[in-house]
């Protein structure tokens, strides 16, 4: 986390706020609720209280503004800059301005008002932007499931550095962004996508380009807002330039960042029997058009051209890939198959049907 230069903070813990105007994109009651919940994100973790007032000068004035709105920081139209806020202090201090030209919503479409308001209030209370891509105070917008929102630990640490701990008997904690070089790191799913490699874990996604040393970590929702966290398998259909992601008994097909119409569908439409409740891992062999699905100790083979499972499957994983146990994730690269299991990955040569070597799961990141 980062505190604003000079460590500005409110001298009192009981603060007031006022909603000056509304956006036509949402019902006023939904705006009220989104903003109320945004304040609760912070009052849940530090001893601050926020009381709404209907007129007069509140500590934190919240409004929807258009283009040049007189504070020296104009908005420039849809997307780009969504909102801004001012650090704690008198008059414009603490105020929050939302760009009226954005599409404000209470779901994953457009820009979620609760998410943006909670971020901006971090500034109103004294937080600057955090470089932690999983934190709420990260500068770029990323949709998060608002029904199950937990303030990330980075943000809790930051705001408690300013206002002290919560007065609750049990200190609140939040999710932390996994370390890219954590030796115990395992993955939920791994896949190629247009020349890059994507590694999924919880809400996070690492993007790795074979020619670039650095690895970028993002929230999955930054690329696919409609996708739930906790992806369990993924593969790229190079032929169709589609990306297929699995969670529990559903799967989504994406073309770029848009989900293809009609998805998610049930995995049983691919030909799995009813007793299969989820897929552990998948990869697609672009040379043969065959996709391999790993479920518990068995694997299936699916023919992308015929769009049906091949005869003679499922087979036991151990009979072909050896003793690697449950497969967490899998992908194909340079003709080899990489099967991830816990902190390790097995490099397999499908031609010789031999294990080439066993690596750390994070071997693709320059740790």
């Amino acid at each position, binding site marked *: 986390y980062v505190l604003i230069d000079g460590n500005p903070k409110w001298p009192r813990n009981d603060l007031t706020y006022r909603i000056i105007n509304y956006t036509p994109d949402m019902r006023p009651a939904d705006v009220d609720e989104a903003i109320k919940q945004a304040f609760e994100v912070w009052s849940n973790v530090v001893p601050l209280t926020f009381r709404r007032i209907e007129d007069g000068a509140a500590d934190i004035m919240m409004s929807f503004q258009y283009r040049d709105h007189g504070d020296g920081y104009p908005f420039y139209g849809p997307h780009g800059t969504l909102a801004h806020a001012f650090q704690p202090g008198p008059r414009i201090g603490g105020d929050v301005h939302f760009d009226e030209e954005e599409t404000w919503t209470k779901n994953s479409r457009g820009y979620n008002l609760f998410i943006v308001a909670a971020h901006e209030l971090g500034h109103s209370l004294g937080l600057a932007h955090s470089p932690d891509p999983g934190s709420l105070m990260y*500068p*770029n917008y990323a949709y998060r499931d608002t029904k199950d929102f937990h303030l990330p630990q980075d943000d809790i640490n930051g705001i408690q550095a300013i206002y002290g701990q919560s007065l609750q008997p049990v200190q609140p904690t939040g999710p932390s962004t996994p370390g890219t070089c954590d030796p115990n790191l395992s993955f939920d799913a791994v896949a190629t996508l247009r020349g890059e490699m994507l590694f999924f874990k919880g809400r996070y996604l690492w993007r790795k380009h074979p020619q*670039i040393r650095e690895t*970028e970590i993002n929230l999955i929702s930054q690329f696919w807002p409609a996708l739930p966290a906790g992806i369990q398998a993924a593969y790229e259909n190079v032929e169709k330039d589609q990306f297929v992601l699995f969670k529990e008994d559903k799967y989504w097909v994406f073309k770029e960042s848009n989900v293809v119409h009609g998805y998610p569908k049930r995995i049983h439409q691919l030909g799995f029997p009813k007793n299969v409740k989820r897929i552990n891992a998948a990869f697609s062999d672009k040379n043969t058009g065959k996709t391999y699905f790993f479920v518990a100790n068995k694997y299936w083979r699916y023919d992308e051209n015929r769009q049906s499972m091949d005869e003679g499957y499922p087979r036991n994983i151990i009979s072909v890939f050896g003793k690697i146990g449950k497969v967490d994730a899998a992908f194909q690269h340079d003709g080899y198959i990489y099967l991830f299991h816990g902190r390790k990955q097995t490099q397999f040569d499908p031609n010789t049907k031999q294990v080439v070597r066993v690596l750390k799961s994070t071997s693709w990141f320059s740790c």
Partner: protein
Amino acid sequence: APVAPEVDTMMLAKGYLRNFYSLETELRPSFRRKITDSVSEKLRKMQSFFGLKVTGKLNNETVEMMKQPRCGVPDIGE
């Protein structure tokens, strides 16, 4: 006349660095050399903040990051 893509990208980058990394606006042409250094220095700061490869040069992944919808508060400084 349509702006050439690379000029368009550099305009996007300068606007972004001005808004979020306090890149000084170009005062006088004689300071052009200084401004170029400053753009490169601010690019490094931005690439470092976002965990990108720090090159001081405008590459695809840096431009992609600049195009992301975001908060209007600067990432460093005032």
